[in-house]
């Protein structure tokens, strides 16, 4: 784990807001999201479907398509050549930044590779788009090295995607994602279409190559157990807002936000095979968000103020981030009930 919390952050996202202008009205899918990533840090991003996780990822890649729009905010990446604000680049510079500054690893098991081109050609395409001056031989060498670093044989270069298993396709996507040693890697549910054993291996590969090239990682996913094993911090998103960002250990032992608490309580555990407590109610429609804190209708600890005022995000003394009225009075009294024992958590998903 090569992570330096004290160094200047690799990525600083501030006040990011993404809106979709749909026929049914304006939908703010990402609302005033701010966070920072330390060099080498691995941040897990969790939340229910439709909470804006993927929109956040697409926004960072500047891949939001109409009717969606990045309304405001900045995403500053620190590179060898200084700082760049991804949202301030023109189209051509942004194209160059993709893969070389910030790369995106899709859920590759299904359909992320072009069926009519060999794996190698798809890697060469990527290199040609960014370093056209490189010779074919050098590109090929670089591509085959990338394949090796994700534990694939060099000969995969000559194969077509349909000749690979799901796990191998996902590894190819990872190899493409690290081809140009980007500073930030975003992996969007990279393991969700794989079986459990392969999930674990692929996740380890991602973390290994991410550490190798010294990039920071944002990993989007549902699997809290997988997150618990490999992430440094976890960010919890609800209805377009970040509601909590905490170091992974602290998040599981002492979740601050009631939504995080509910998420963790809904996990299956080895020592409790009985009934799980699910979250009451449904995720809100982004078209008609509840007033105040969007979570208050489902929140067991809701207070009168929650229905009226959107909670301000606060940073606690130990560097955690939470947006909840329960924590409005910033003092040492940050002690919601511990929900789970830590060690039972690390094992839970493997069961």
């Amino acid at each position: 784990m090569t992570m330096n919390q004290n160094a200047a952050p690799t990525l600083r996202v501030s006040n990011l807001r993404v809106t979709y202008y749909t026929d049914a009205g304006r939908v703010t899918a990402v609302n005033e999201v701010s966070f920072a990533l330390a060099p080498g840090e691995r941040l897990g991003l969790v939340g229910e479907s439709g909470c804006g996780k993927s929109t956040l990822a697409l926004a960072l890649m500047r891949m939001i398509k109409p009717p969606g729009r990045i309304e405001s905010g900045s995403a500053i990446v620190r590179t060898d050549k200084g700082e760049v604000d991804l949202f301030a680049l023109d189209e051509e510079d942004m194209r160059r930044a993709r893969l070389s500054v910030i790369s995106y690893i899709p859920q590759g098991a299904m359909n992320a590779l072009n069926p009519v081109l060999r794996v190698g050609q798809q890697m060469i395409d990527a290199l040609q788009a960014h370093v056209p001056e490189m010779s074919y031989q050098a590109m090929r060498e670089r591509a085959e090295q990338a394949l090796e670093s994700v534990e694939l044989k060099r000969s995969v270069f000559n194969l077509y995607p349909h000749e690979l298993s799901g796990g191998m396709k996902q590894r190819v996507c990872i190899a493409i994602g690290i081809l140009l040693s980007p500073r930030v890697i975003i992996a969007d549910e990279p393991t969700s279409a794989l079986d459990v054993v392969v999930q674990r291996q692929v996740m380890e590969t991602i973390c290994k190559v991410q550490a190798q090239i010294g990039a920071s990682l944002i990993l989007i996913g549902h699997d809290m157990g997988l997150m618990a094993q490999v992430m440094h911090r976890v960010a919890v998103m609800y209805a377009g807002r970040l509601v909590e960002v905490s170091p992974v250990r602290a998040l599981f032992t002492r979740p601050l936000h009631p939504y995080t608490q509910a998420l963790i309580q809904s996990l299956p555990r080895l020592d409790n095979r009985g009934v799980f407590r699910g979250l009451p109610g449904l995720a809100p429609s982004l078209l008609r968000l509840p007033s105040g804190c969007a979570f208050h209708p489902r929140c067991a600890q809701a207070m009168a103020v929650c229905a009226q005022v959107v909670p301000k995000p606060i940073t606690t003394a130990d560097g955690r981030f939470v947006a909840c009225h329960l924590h409005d009075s910033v003092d040492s009294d940050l002690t919601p009930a511990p929900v789970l024992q830590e060690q039972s958590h690390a094992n839970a998903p493997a069961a």
Partner: protein
Amino acid sequence: MQLRYLLQRLAFMVFVIWSAITLLFFLPRLSPINPVRERFAELQRSTGWAPRDMERLVKVYEVKFGLNKPLLEQYADYMASVLRGDLGFSIMRYPRTVSELIAQALPWTIGLLLVTTLLTFAIGTAIGALAAWPRSPQWVKGMVTPLVVLAAVPPYLLGLLLIYFVAFRAKLLPLGGAYTLGRFTGPELSLPFILDVARHAVLPALSLILASVGFWALGMRGMGVTVQGEDYVLFAEHKGLKLGRIFYAYYVRNAILPQVTALALALGSIVSAGILVEYLYGFPGLGSLLNSAILANDFFVIYGIGLITIVAVAVSMTLVDLLYPLLDPRIRYGTR
């Protein structure tokens, strides 16, 4: 590709050709029109010549063409002669052979239909691909609709409109024919002749292109809409590829696959695709020949043209089948 598969595929092709020829052999025989009698009647109408012993004459010619034998025996004879490469005589234009007539007409048809089919494919596919591409300007996306409206109009009606407005009223192009008859005694290899042929081919070609470019555009747009949303196209953009490369190698390359199958079928049927348009423009191709043969129930000419059509379709389908793995690596025959 395994030899075994190749042989299977070729055997299947032979079977398709045989069964289609067989079907074709018996179809015109259902008609009550006797081509020999028809020929003498035609002679009588045009020259006033009426043989005294008409019935005997008809019998003589029926024996000559083998039409007096039982149908199955005729079928066996015909198949045997086809295998020898002999397509028989035209009844209406005796003593000219069917091969001779076809050899004369075929180059015209191939010249016109091959060029228009390829042009239509290229134009329609390009328009369809652009129409489904999200970054295309609005007017390109809107182009498909009027083309589809045009595609609903049969080519011969378009041909009539073009003849009336372009050739007859505006006198911009010739009314019909394949070349100016007074200027040239017959086909020759010279620049003026080629230019003259091209001038004559513009309107027939235009009627054929306008009438079918919409289908190609519609087909490609349908596939394009599906493919442009595929993960690999999005991932290509995430990789920071240039738009041109994404458009061609990731988008068109995948969306075009069904179009290629359709192109092979269209190329196989070029012999029959232009019949009405050829007839309308007095174009001396297979279409005009087939039209006159059907009117006179000239069995052997119908069989001959049918045979060419069937063979062309069967061969091009087989070729596409065999060449498809080059386009789509997911399709492999036998072992990898």
